């Protein structure tokens, strides 16, 4: 009886192996995937900064240290559902914004960061490095 039981188990094992192999061979799953969740976060952030720079609004707002206005612009330009945190660093590497510039703090499963080099059209030709972290 014990031998017969063992044979049944081996039978069942082989049967399940055949079924599993057959199932897997019928599924043509791709071996690579593009992660849709992280795709575009950096691009979205960078495009937003470029748009604000092209409209000449971002540079003057930074010179004026008008962080509230910058937050409002980012809230409008960035897609809804994204969290962000913006840091402005001057030419000497010193942080310029004395308070967080964000929509309530950075959060999300995916977080990406971009850096944008900004020149301001003033007679002093201010140079800034803008670090924008975007999360979703």
């Amino acid at each position: 009886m014990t031998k017969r039981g063992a044979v049944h188990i081996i039978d069942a094992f082989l049967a399940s192996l055949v079924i599993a192999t057959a199932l897997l061979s019928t599924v043509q799953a791709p071996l690579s995937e593009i992660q849709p969740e992280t795709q575009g976060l950096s691009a979205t952030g960078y495009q937003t900064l470029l748009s604000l720079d092209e409209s000449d609004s971002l540079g003057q707002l930074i010179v004026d240290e008008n962080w509230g206005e910058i937050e409002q612009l980012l809230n409008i330009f960035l897609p809804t559902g994204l969290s962000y945190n913006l840091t402005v660093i001057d030419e000497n590497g010193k942080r310029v914004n004395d308070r967080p510039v964000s929509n309530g703090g950075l959060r999300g499963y995916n977080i990406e960061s971009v850096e944008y080099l900004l020149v301001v059209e003033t007679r002093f030709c201010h140079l800034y490095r803008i670090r924008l972290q975007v999360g979703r």
Partner: protein
Amino acid sequence: MKARKGQVLVVAALAIALTILSVQSFLYSLSKQRITPQNDYLSEYLLSINQGSKHTIAASLINISNSGVSTNLASNLARWTAFLVDDYQFGTPIITITLETSSPYSDGLRFEWGATGTGISSACSDFNLSLSGRDVEVNWDYSVNITSKVTCRGEYTDLGGTSKRFDLIVNVYNEEEPCLADYVILHYNKTTTWENPTNLMDYFVTDYGNGTYMYSFTDDIDKTQIPVRIQVVDLRGVYIRVEQTLVEN
């Protein structure tokens, strides 16, 4: 007893099948390549460098046209280049700058503030951006020309005796496109000194809102050729001056 053995066999078979499937699934997930795009904003990055070059040229022109030293153009571009070299988002960017030297430019600058009826403040430079990094190879030549221009046309009408009525039109351009002025200051040469007509009773200015400004005023001047001088600062802050000699229409 036999029925129970059969149940045990079925459960065992299911357990083995599930184990095999789990292992297969795990191995499959490990074998997957995760491709996260790295260069999905390369074009925007290049545009931002072009934008930064434009801003640097414009900022230098603002400075120099407002009594700054002419070497500020080269020094600001050197600052921009040094700032850019430290950025490694897509590889090492190397930017080569060649200031425009062919006439009418000198060291990238052109100021024509004479009595021709057209005033020009301009800065121009050629750039070569070379970017070399992982999966990125860029070699891009581009040119930046920032030009603020003011034109002045006018004449006077003899009202009898020495009384004359002056009418002149001022146009402001950025890169040959009409643009607004931050402010315009008009002077005319009555005797030997420059006079401000804003104190005259009938001084009148019309702002058409499209970069065209019309001025008219009346004064007693005992000359037939009357020089006028227009000083303009456009909205981006570039200073331009133009002079014109008005004659009777």
